[in-house]
Each structure stands twice: as structure tokens, then as C-alpha cells.
């Protein structure tokens, strides 16, 4: 092998390495979210063990959340006799007398690990979770023996669910898993977003994005048609086209700043003065709300739709147009009867892509109406069915807020993985749809062009 082939092979290997690293990172990230997100609702084994607390052996009930190796130095810092290595276990022990819901235990100090079948997890609507053994139950009440052997009586109506995971078969676990997912997707959050479901966040995201699509689709498509079909191809139009394309690259937070200043304060303030003057100084539209969220998203994604429309129109063979004109059709007729039917899938692809981009957007929406907690859905039973001035929740902000700002980080973190999974699935399915549409459209134009 000659020496001059060596650098070529090196380039080949290193570029393969870079590609593999990129793909691997992507897959691992997806896998991480998938595994952590799914694990949240898989019924985990409930354990029981003995642990010395202030000199006395005490019973602990709970679930193992994670294990960690700790080295000698950190052991010394914790004031423990120095082993070379020790393992500590994070136990989710629920509500107990005088202890936190999550607590670290040293593995080497604990004794007598068991997984008794009758150990249950009780989820209370307002007081959190309890681990214990069910002593008595009847139609209205349920008595639970907690880890410190005290017993507590709960009203049936306050209990969300009682689970005994150690008794469940695989099928039972699957059923429970599905039921808990359904509950997560279909109920409202409780306890400062650290328990309950995410229905308002899903609805907020979906509603604002749908409303955005309603706003952006006609306007963006018309602007695209104008730029491609009607505008004369001069220097000015080229400049305009360039700047419209590049607006897609302007940071979304800048659009948020504009939206707060212009939509909320200027536009909303004027609407209030004109139509809701009797309610002032209580602002109706002069304050962040669903309408402004959708408008901001529409503004943000307008360039995406315009670009997609133009690209779709550019793909249509000129012969189609010329044939139409040759038969004496007017420009509007050629557009409506010949071009649009072929180009519509491309435009819809643009709108779907815009929706998927909008669904993941967070930063600009913080200014204009997406909040941490707004459990009431922005829906009404009479026309126009949507409460446009109401503040909403969104999946993206939930990830930011529950993930980083929650006071109960141990309980909140697994939930965020689940929310991220939901958001990812939403965006992924929108993209899949867009891809399908694009493929369909390309096949169609190719057959037309041939």
C-alpha cells in the first residue's frame, strides 16, 4: 500500500467516526427519553428493609429510585466511617412521619431486604403517596399500616388508587401501566404540577398550534403565491424574498419581544379601550392570552409557510401553466384550476412543518400568555367555543418549569421525561405526516411533469 493513500483513509475513518457519533448521540438521547419517560408509570417493586435511625433499627417502606457509588472522601465529608467505597440508595418512601418523601440510605447499614406481596402504594388526592400494608377496607374507608407501625385511616373518596405492585402479574402491570398513562394524559395537574396529569398543557399546546395554523395557512399561502406568481421578478422583489426567507432565522425570542410590545400592549390595549372600556382597568386583551400566543406563533412560522409555498410552486412544470394559458384561461383560472390542486400538498406540508416548529417553541410564549399553571381549559360551550383572552399552559413550558423550577425535584424529574416524550411524539408524528405528504406530492408532480 502506498503512503499517499494513508491520508485518504484517515479522512474516511474520521468522517465515519463523526457521522457515527452524531447518529449515536441522537439515538441515545431518544432512548434516554423513551426509557425514562416510560419507566415513570411502570409499577416498580415495593421494598421493605431495616435501617438504624438514631440508634434504633426502624422499618422503611418504599421504592428504589437510584443507586450511587460514593468514594471515601465523600464518605468522610458525610461523617461516616471510611470504607473504600460505599453504595447509597435513593428511596421514594412517600409521606411518613417527620421524613422527606425521598431519602438516601446507605446500603451497607441496611438489613433484611424484603419484597412482601401485601405491601401497597396508596395515592391520595391531596396528601401525596403512602406506602404501607392494607389492614382493613370497607366501602367507605381504608386502613393502612405505615412503616412505623402506626395505622392511618383514609376515606375512599380521597384515594386516587391503591396498588400492590409485588402481587401483580405482567398482564396486570401492563394494564396498570396503560391506566396510569391514560390518567396522566387526561387529568389536571395537582400539587404544584408535581402530581396528576397534563391535560391542560396538551390542550394548550394543541389549541394554540391549531389556531396558529388557521391564521398562518391562508395568509402565508397567499403571500407565497404573490411572491412566486404575481410579483415582478425585479431587484426589489428579490430583496424582499431574501429578507422573508431570512426572517426564519431570526431568533424566536425576538418575535416574542415584538409580540409583547406590539400585540399585547399596543394592539391589546387599543382593543380594550374600544370594546371593553367598561371593564378597564381590568385588562381583557391588553394582557397575555391565547390569542396573542397563536398570533406570535403565526408570525414566527410565516416565513416557513411562505418558503414552502414558493418551493411547491417552483416545482410545478411551466408547461402546465402555458397549456392553461393556451386554452384561453385567465391567470386566476390557471392558478385555481391547474396549479393549486397540484401544489396544495406542498403548502399543507409547509403548514404542518410550521405546526411542528410551533409546538416545541417556548421562549417567546412566556411573554405572551403561556403560564405555569392555568388548569381551566380555554374552551366554552357556546360560540366561538374558544376563550381567546385566557392564559394557557403548554408542554414546552411544563418541561422548563417542572424540570428546573420545581420545589420537589426528585418527584418532578421523572414526570418531565414523560412530558418530553409526549411532546416528542407530537412533533414526531407531525413530521412524519409532513414527510408522507411531501413524498406523495413529489410523486404527483413527477408524473405531471413527465
Amino acid at each position: 500500500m502506498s503512503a499517499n493513500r494513508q491520508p485518504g483513509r484517515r479522512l474516511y475513518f474520521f468522517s465515519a467516526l463523526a457521522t457515527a457519533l452524531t447518529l449515536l448521540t441522537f439515538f441515545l438521547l431518544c432512548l434516554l427519553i423513551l426509557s425514562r419517560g416510560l419507566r415513570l408509570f411502570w409499577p416498580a417493586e415495593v421494598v421493605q428493609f431495616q435501617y438504624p435511625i438514631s440508634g434504633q433499627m426502624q422499618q422503611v417502606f418504599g421504592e428504589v429510585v437510584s443507586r450511587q457509588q460514593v468514594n471515601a472522601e465523600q464518605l468522610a465529608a458525610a461523617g461516616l466511617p471510611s470504607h473504600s467505597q460505599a453504595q447509597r440508595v435513593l428511596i421514594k418512601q412517600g409521606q411518613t412521619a417527620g421524613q422527606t418523601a425521598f431519602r438516601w440510605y446507605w446500603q451497607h447499614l441496611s438489613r433484611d431486604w424484603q419484597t412482601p406481596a401485601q405491601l401497597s402504594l396508596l395515592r391520595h388526592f391531596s396528601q401525596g403517596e403512602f406506602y404501607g400494608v392494607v389492614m382493613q377496607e370497607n366501602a367507605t374507608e381504608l386502613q393502612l399500616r405505615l412503616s412505623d407501625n402506626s395505622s392511618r385511616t383514609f376515606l375512599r373518596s380521597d384515594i386516587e388508587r391503591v396498588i400492590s405492585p409485588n402481587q401483580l402479574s405482567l398482564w396486570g402491570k401492563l394494564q396498570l401501566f396503560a391506566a396510569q398513562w391514560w390518567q396522566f394524559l387526561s387529568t389536571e395537574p395537582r400539587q404544584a404540577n408535581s402530581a396528576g396529569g397534563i391535560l391542560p398543557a396538551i390542550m394548550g399546546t394543541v389549541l394554540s398550534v391549531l389556531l396558529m395554523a388557521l391564521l398562518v395557512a391562508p395568509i402565508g399561502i397567499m403571500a407565497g403565491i404573490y411572491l412566486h406568481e404575481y410579483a415582478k421578478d425585479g431587484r426589489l422583489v428579490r430583496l424582499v424574498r431574501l429578507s422573508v426567507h431570512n426572517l426564519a432565522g431570526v431568533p424566536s425570542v425576538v418575535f416574542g419581544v415584538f409580540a409583547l410590545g406590539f400585540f399585547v400592549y399596543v394592539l391589546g390595549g387599543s382593543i380594550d379601550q374600544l370594546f371593553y372600556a367598561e371593564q378597564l382597568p381590568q385588562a381583557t386583551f391588553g394582557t397575555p392570552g391565547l390569542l396573542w400566543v397563536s398570533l406570535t406563533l403565526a408570525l414566527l412560522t410565516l416565513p416557513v409557510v411562505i418558503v414552502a409555498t414558493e418551493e411547491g410552486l417552483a416545482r410545478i412544470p411551466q408547461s402546465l401553466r402555458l397549456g392553461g394559458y393556451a386554452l384561453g384561461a385567465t391567470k386566476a383560472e390557471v392558478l385555481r384550476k391547474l396549479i393549486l390542486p397540484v401544489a396544495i400538498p406542498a403548502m399543507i406540508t409547509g403548514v404542518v412543518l410550521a405546526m411542528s416548529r410551533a409546538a416545541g417553541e417556548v421562549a417567546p410564549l412566556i411573554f405572551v400568555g403561556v403560564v405555569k399553571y392555568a388548569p381551566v381549559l380555554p374552551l366554552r360551550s357556546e360560540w366561538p367555543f374558544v376563550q381567546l383572552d385566557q392564559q394557557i399552559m403548554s408542554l414546552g413550558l411544563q418541561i422548563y418549569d417542572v424540570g428546573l423550577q420545581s420545589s420537589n425535584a426528585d418527584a418532578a424529574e421523572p414526570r418531565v421525561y414523560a412530558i418530553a416524550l409526549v411532546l416528542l411524539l407530537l412533533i414526531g408524528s407531525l413530521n412524519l405526516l409532513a414527510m408522507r405528504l411531501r413524498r406523495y406530492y413529489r410523486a404527483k408532480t413527477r408524473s405531471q411533469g413527465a
Partner: protein
Amino acid sequence: MTPNAEKPTGSHLPNAQQRQRRSRHRRWLDRGWHALITLAGVSVIATLLAIFVYLLLEVLPLFKPVSAQLQPHAASTPPPALILPSIADDDFAMAAAKAGFTADFQLIDGLKRVIILAKRDGEACVLLRAALSQGCQQRLSLTDRTVQLTAATWLAGQQSLITGDSSGQLKQWYLIADAAGQLRLSWVKPFSQQAASIVAIAAERGRRGFAVLDAKGGLSVFYSALSSPIWQAQYATLSLAQKGVTELRFTPNNDGLWLLNAQQAEGFLAINNRHPEISWRTLWQKVWYESWQQPEYVWQSGGGYELYQGKYSLVPLTVGTLKAAFYALLVAVPLAVLAAIFSVCFLQEPVRSRLSSMIELMALFPTVIIGFLAAIWLAPALEQHLLSLLLYLLLVPAAVWALAYYWHYLPRRWQRLNSSGAMLILMSAILLVGAWVALGLGSWFESLLFDDSLRFWLDQQGVDYQQRNALVIGLAMGFAVLPVIYTVSYDALAQIPQQLTAGAYALGADQWQIVRRIMLPVAMPGFLAAVMLGLSRAIGETMIILMATGNNPITNFNLFEGLRSLTATLTIELPEAAVDSSHYRVLFLVAILLFVFTFAANTLADLVRQRLRRNLQRLE
């Protein structure tokens, strides 16, 4: 189509009148469509371009020069002077007498912690309440030797003092704690010299501005961070006769200045001075703020109390943004460009387009999820396995280097892997095994060399390691901008016409020579555009930086420390900024900076790409 009576029976064609009506109808429809679409198009484009104009309109008042107008006979009466504690009603007086100091000027702060006594000749004495019996804590001269002290006043907040003397010199003094923790009055800076002896100084209420009157009738308004006056005029131009004005007094909201002569109003000056604290100098240069030890770049916008002096230096935020973008590009550019080269130069068609659409799919990963993973998963993991990461960065390239070197010694059958996607699987295996080895070796080395923890060792060496640092940002945001750079580079490489490479092959060039001598130089503008687009994405990125840094406005490029970017600042502070305040407008200025920079970078990248495409098309 109802058959018409005049029409020959049997024909269903429309008659002339119908045809005319119908063609008119069609023409109207055509025009209507044209008008509708043109209207929509033009209005959308106008709206998008109006965004910039609106942002600019919100920012412009910041830089509007101060204006003032004299109203000789104002309707209202001057407001009462601010009541500051006087020396007589306190045991300070006794102490002053004990110190043997008969003062012409007495200044006490609102909390009665400090009293400053000064004589006409400039000699001054600082008394502290905590140590009254010890007499003067500090004796100093407030003027140069031959000139007389003629005016002295606190600025709002009573942390600093402005003095004026008979030579027209104005000086600012701060009360700063020295090394021993003792409050001392220290000279900070002079302001620009006035034409004549200073007659009166008046401090603004609630912010650090003041007005000065000199003996020749020169009237100036200053802001304490700037040494030259922000407004200046002579009595003559104000058309006010000199009537012996001895005192100036601001209205409570600083929009007017009373000219007084022994409690008698001589005139009223309406001043329009909304944002004195913002100027290019305070935004981009070091400013010495009250109770700071030296001039610094500071961004501290919020304040719990009314007298808080907002500190708006854009330098820490800009540096933070550039730092994050720099590390992100450091990660993303080599990976993306290499991946693009691999896809175009070494992969066959079905795998190639599948790979490129996969990487494009990565661009749709919501950044809020990446930010969350970076903050909650990556940052703690990196803190624990920092050494392993370093080892990984050495080990894997070394292994691949060795593999490339000894490849031709392998059996022929294996070498055929070369031309397929199977290489990616081999590389993934190397990466995974490498990670496992690096983790093991990392903890072994750590216990061997660094007392079990590189993190503690770094602390001992004086390196400040913050958990959410620029390294985390570099990796996370690198992942976010990678798809953009990849896509643009891929396009640039894929556009290179076949005959260029085919010709080179025919002349006997090998793959490496073709890539290096033909593909890379030809596609270079494309790479440049890719990097530019990546930079603009990195600068505009918000959620990752917001979540995975400490959001601490510091000015350095340290890899192990956090940062605060322009975008994150907007997200954090805009919802809380009072509408039309200086803070609000500065945040709009930040938005404009982001807008202009990303827009310019994108446009430039677009032009470069278009040019490249034109040039390559000409080759074909």
C-alpha cells in the same frame, strides 16, 4: 343552461351576449384574485418588515438628546425641599463641636450613619455615628489648595457626594468600605469643568443625576456615570435675566427644574430627560458604580427598592452569548462538516439520503428538551466523569487513527467494509466500547492521581468549576446547531458537478486527492455559509442556555464557568420590566441587536450560497 329563444334550436353553446357576460365575469374574477393576493402578499411582507421598525421605535427614545424649555411664569409653586436630617436635632452636633470643627457645609445621610462636615476652604471631616466619641474618622480636603468650596450635595441614595468649587470644578466622592471594612470618603472622578464658580447643585430624586448652576449663568444637567453634561445652556439663551438665583430644585419626577432665589421662584425649566442612565458609554464601557471598588462591566437590572441604580452594561451578556456560540461551534462544526463529507463522498445512494434525512430530523428536536437533558442529566454526569470525557477524547481518535493505519494488514474480506454503511456500525461499536473503557479508566486515574475526584482537585487548584458551565452548553448546543451546518455543507458538496470528480479520477487521482484538491476548495464557500448559519442559530438559541447555565452575567471565556446570554436575559427579565422604563427599552435594544446580527449573518450566508450555486451551474 336554459336554451334561448333566439338561438338556433339544437345548439347548447352560449350566445354572444352570454359569452360577453361570461368573459366580463371571468375578467373581474381574475382582477379580484390578483388584487386579493397582492394585498395579502404585500401586507404580510410589510408586517414582517415592520417588526424591525417597531423595535427601533421602542429603542430610539433611549438615545434622544435631553431637551429643556424655560417657562418663566409657571402656574404651580415649587415643591418643598427634601427634608434631610439636620445637624441640630441630633447628638452629632455635640460631636462636631467636640471635634472643633465649625462647618459651612453639613451633610448627613438618611440613616444617620455618617456626617460630613466641610469648611469653605475645602477642609472636611467625616464622622461615623458608631464611633462618635473618636471625633473625625477621616480628614481630607475636598478642593485644590487655592480654591474655595462653594457647593456640596448628596446624590439620591446618599452613597455619593458632588462638590463644586470656585474654579468651576465638579467632583464626585463615594462612600466605600476600605480593606478594614471602614467607610471612607474617596474621590472618584471629576466632571467637565464649568465656566465659573459653582453657585448651586441640585440632585435629581430617585436617580443619580444632578443640575449645576455657575456664576456666569451656565446651567448644566449631568448624569453621574458620564463626565460631560447631558444638557447645557446659558441664561442668555434661555432668555432669563440673571436675578441672583441661589438654589435649584427638581420636581419629584425629575421632569422640571425650579430656579429659586431664597424660596422665591424665578423660573421653571421643563426638562425632557427620561433615560439619562443609558448611553453608548454606559452600555459598552466600564462604569464605576456607587459602592463598587472600581469601574466594571455590570448587568444588574432588578432592584428591590426605588432608589436602586440600574446597571446596564451589555458587555457581559454579549460576551456570554459569544462564549456559548464559540464552544457550540467548536463541537458542531468539525462533526457536521466531517459527517457531510462522509455522506457525500463515501456513501452510496440509498444509505446516503436516509442518513441525511435522519440528521435533518435531529433539527426538530425541541430545544427545551435538549436544555432539560443538559441541565438535569448531562451537567451532573460531566461533573462526575470529567476526566473520563478527556480520556474519551484522546482514546477514540487514537483508536481510529490506529485502525486506519493498520487497515490494509487486515484480511481482504474485512477491508471490503469500506464502501458500505457497515463502517458506521463498526464506528458506533468503537464509540460505545471506548465510552466503557474511558469510564473505567477515568475513575481509576482519578483515584490514582487526583485523590478520587478531579472536581475537588480542581477546586484546590483554584479553578472554579460550576456544574452548569460552558462545556455543558458547548456539547448541548453543539448538538442543536449541528443539523443546520450539516445540511448546508451537504448541499454545497452534493452540488459539485460529477464531471469534476470523474475527470480527476480519470487522471489517476485517489479519493483523498479528490476530496482535498477538488471537493473541499470548491465547497469552501458553502462551509463558510454553514458556519455562519450555525453561528446565527447559536446566538439566537434561548432555552438551552437558559436552562443549562447559571445565568450569571460574568465576563470571561472560562470553560468551567457559566454565562448569561442576551436571549436568556430577554426571557428572564422582559416579563418583569415596567413598560417604557429604561430597563424595558434596553431589553428591546437587546432584541434589535439579536435581530440585526442574525439577519445579517443569514443574509450573508444566503448570498454566499446563491453565488456558489450559480458558479457551479456555470461549470456544468
